[in-house]
């Protein structure tokens, strides 16, 4: 699938084909999409995940996770749940990671990068070495970096023809259930499975106007939303028909009937 179409086709899927397993290789591709995303300081060990698979992970663990995400019906249905988390211990190897980036030619001497610079400046500056400063900032940045990876993982699932979506849950319960160490904080849970909804899933979800979100030069001055660009993105499938499509209510009634759920 072309990138623009993947962005435009992604939905938060809320009905999954519970009877249809997800191929392990597809899950692997989703995880790679997250692994290869950008990360502050290339501290990739901050962003981790535990995969829970119906029929493979012990039932007690999967049932425990479903309970921790408030027994939402889509969690019962989706055969795979990826529990994304941040591991604060992943920041500890920041120095050797940066040195590897220098060695690999990613961080260049033209921009002042050297082992001495890493030791004397970067490792002592909390904006770069987050463990040297405020722990709240470190947690905030970790969540941000985790989110970057999850964003890619959502698109990768769409690219693989899968339905996907994020749910939230009781983090401490999840941490204990999955035997995570103290340094780990569960974030959001990505459900993965074949969607039981149509590809359009009722249409692209409501979004605020572009002009209200993105500014040019100063806060509040709209960046401008060129109509020809909008047309190009529509042709490419990134901008799609907005929800609700005319048949959506009937589709939801049919889905509710299929899953034995109230409408």
């Amino acid at each position, binding site marked *: 699938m072309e990138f623009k179409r993947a962005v435009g086709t992604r939905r938060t899927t809320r009905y999954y084909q519970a009877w249809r397993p997800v191929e392990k290789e597809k899950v692997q591709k989703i995880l790679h999409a997250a692994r290869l995303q950008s990360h502050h300081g290339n501290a990739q060990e901050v962003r981790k995940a535990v995969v829970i698979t119906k029929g493979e992970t012990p039932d007690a663990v999967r049932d425990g996770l479903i309970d921790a995400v408030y027994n939402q019906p889509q969690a*019962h*249905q989706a055969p795979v749940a990826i529990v994304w988390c941040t591991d604060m211990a992943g920041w500890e190897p920041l120095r050797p990671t940066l040195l590897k980036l220098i060695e690999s030619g990613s961080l260049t001497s033209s921009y002042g990068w050297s082992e001495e610079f890493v030791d004397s400046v970067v490792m002592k500056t909390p904006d770069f070495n987050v463990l040297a400063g405020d722990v709240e900032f470190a947690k905030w940045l970790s969540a941000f970096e985790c989110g970057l990876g999850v964003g890619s993982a959502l698109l990768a699932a769409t690219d693989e023809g899968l339905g996907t979506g994020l749910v939230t849950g009781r983090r401490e319960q999840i941490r204990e259930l999955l035997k995570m160490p103290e340094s780990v904080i569960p974030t959001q849970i990505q459900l993965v499975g074949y969607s039981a909804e149509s590809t359009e899933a009722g249409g692209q979800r409501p979004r605020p106007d572009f002009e209200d979100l993105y500014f040019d030069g100063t806060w509040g001055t709209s960046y401008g939303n060129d109509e020809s660009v909008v047309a190009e993105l529509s042709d490419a499938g990134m901008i799609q028909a907005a929800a609700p499509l005319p048949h959506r209510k009937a589709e939801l009634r049919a889905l509710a009937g299929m899953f*034995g*759920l*109230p*409408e």
Partner: protein
Amino acid sequence: MTDTAFHELITVQRYAAHLSDLDTKDRDARLNTIAEFAEFVGRTPDEMIAEIFNEETRKYRKRGFYSDRVKEFSAALDGPRNRQLARGNVIRSFFIANGRRIPPEQPDWI
């Protein structure tokens, strides 16, 4: 309760608005199911909605009671399991339309 009084209840009107895409026969059948359930538990629809949730503590207080009554009510229908489930889900939909949730029964195949 008269039919008119039933239809004038705010909770019934909220649910009816939720059914606006259905034809009259379907809509009436569902509203009739609500009326039957209200009789089954000996409360008006407004009383059911008021009772299940404590506005002061912002917590459910009789969810287990209603969850059990819905199961009993649906099981009393002489018919296949999926029709019983659908009947119970009409009641759950009524609660949802009024901002309250009774957990659904997960089908065995999930």
